């Protein structure tokens, strides 16, 4: 499942941009590959993150995976519900399973992100 209106990274994060705030999570494809999520290491509010650099860790029964920041900016809030209910990422990755909100430094890092159609093609390519 890919949601229209969001932007995506090649590493399977999504971002929903509203003004200068980007809400960030991992895609349905990513949660399916990871399998059942058992732990989420959330970023610390106030941390500066850089686009394409690690900002969080998601651990499943299969592997621990770095989550990369889709945009450059500052973490302004995190979804602390994930600490007790990491399975929200499996159940509802685009809504209740959001990971954090980033206040973007500028729009520059948005340029390299994919739209829904481009991401769909990217996933298609990755599956082959």
């Amino acid at each position, binding site marked *: 499942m890919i949601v229209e209106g969001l932007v995506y990274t090649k590493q399977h994060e999504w971002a929903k941009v509203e003004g200068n705030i980007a809400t960030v999570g991992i895609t349905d494809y990513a949660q399916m590959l990871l399998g*059942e999520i*058992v*732990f989420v290491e959330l970023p610390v509010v106030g941390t500066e993150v850089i686009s394409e650099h690690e900002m969080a860790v998601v651990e499943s029964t299969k*592997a621990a*995976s770095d989550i990369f920041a889709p945009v450059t900016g500052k973490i302004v809030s995190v979804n602390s519900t994930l600490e007790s209910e990491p*399975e929200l990422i499996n159940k509802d990755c685009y809504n209740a399973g959001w990971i954090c909100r980033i206040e973007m430094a500028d729009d520059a890092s948005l340029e390299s992100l994919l739209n829904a159609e481009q991401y769909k093609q990217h996933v298609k390519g990755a*599956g082959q």
Partner: protein
Amino acid sequence: MKLIFEKSVPGRRAVQAGPGDVPAVNIQSTLLRESAAELPELSELDVVRHFTELSHRNFGVDSNFYPLGSCTMKYNPKVAEHIASYPGFARLHPLLPQLRMGGMLTQGALRVLYEMDLLLREITGMAGFTMQPLAGAHGELTGMMIMAAYHADKGNKKTTVLIPDSAHGTNPASAAIAGYSVATIPSKDGVMDVDAVKEHLSDDVAGLMLTCPNTLGLFNPHVKEICDLIHSVNGLAYYDGANLNAIVGKARPGDFGFDIVHVNLHKTFATPHGGGGPGAGPVGVTEELVPYLPVSVVAKRSDGTYTLEYDRPKSIGYIAPFYGNFSVVLKAYVYILMLGNEGLRRVAENAVLNANYVKEKLKSHYRIAFDRLCKHECVFSISDQMAHNGIRAIDIAKALIDRGFHPPTVYFPTVVHEAMMIEPTESESKETLDGFIDAMIDIAGQAGSDPARLKTAPATAPVCRPNETAAARNLNIACL
């Protein structure tokens, strides 16, 4: 199977000790427990049967096929165990060489360490070894500390180590603990991409960590070029010997241009591996790096006796108590001498032959990650079964248990989706491999015909399908 506590019958006893002739002592009541300890009460025969039954539930390479990829779980010849149990070795006290005249009582053991150094030099093409690291990852850390000591000594300002995306997780961990940041290099056609290495090349590069053949069982044809590139910026090339079994006796990391090498004795050289080993991860280096090796080092005097040298001012120091896992080194020494040059070559040849046999027989039933000649292991992706039937690698792994095989490595390397990594090793006969192949084909059939049943496998194990998600999410460590 009942717990030993459930088999307990009040008053039942094994051996009855006779009445003691030591006078009873009055113990302060504050030191006594308030209620009696709940110890199981059984006859000796009940206890013997209980533990014998438990021992039958062990699964090891002595009982069944154990194709755990990237782990080289090969058979451990019993003669090596026997020799390591000789009292002359087994009862040596590790402090003996430090005592006055004690060195003369440990000449045999020191000679084993000295000659093992020479044997490993010959096998890997390096100039000197330390036997001290207690496992592969410990060898990696030792190697990276040598790399850091070398750069510090030379005044080189280095910050970064290049590691391919298919590496064992211990590689970046070792580099980080040695103080370096890690640049992950993507793979191309299953091996470290030379162009990506060039892109990351700068004066900041301290070195490279490379497993070759890598965790996909693929030998990097550009390995020499990659080492040369690293040397062009005064970096050092580190060879992770986890997969040395594929090339032992055939090719030497030192000849590719590597500067530091670790060898897993518990993999390539057939010392016990599963169940905690213990392992040993000797580290070899080039002539230029020998001064940085840990202390102590076994040296041969002009009169032919052996001694321990400590006066090594540039050494990284102690990395393990005493001389490492000595008996593991001894078992590997026996193995190498027993096989000799010709035998070690045949190890590599048969390990590679067996892996390719399994790959060819199974590739029409499971998607092969890279369809070309592999080395000691082959990696399948269960992605087709997942797309069509919702079957994951874990389901195939569990179904193998019902068919009498230990599951291969799953979900590693992470660059392959739903990875299943099979390393048969040279120990296994064609008949065993055929049995495993038949089981895998049977499971592939069941993935199509009855996926729901596959999801509940294993049905025959003492513990069937533990809920791994619940176990990870609801950690209950109260008993610790």
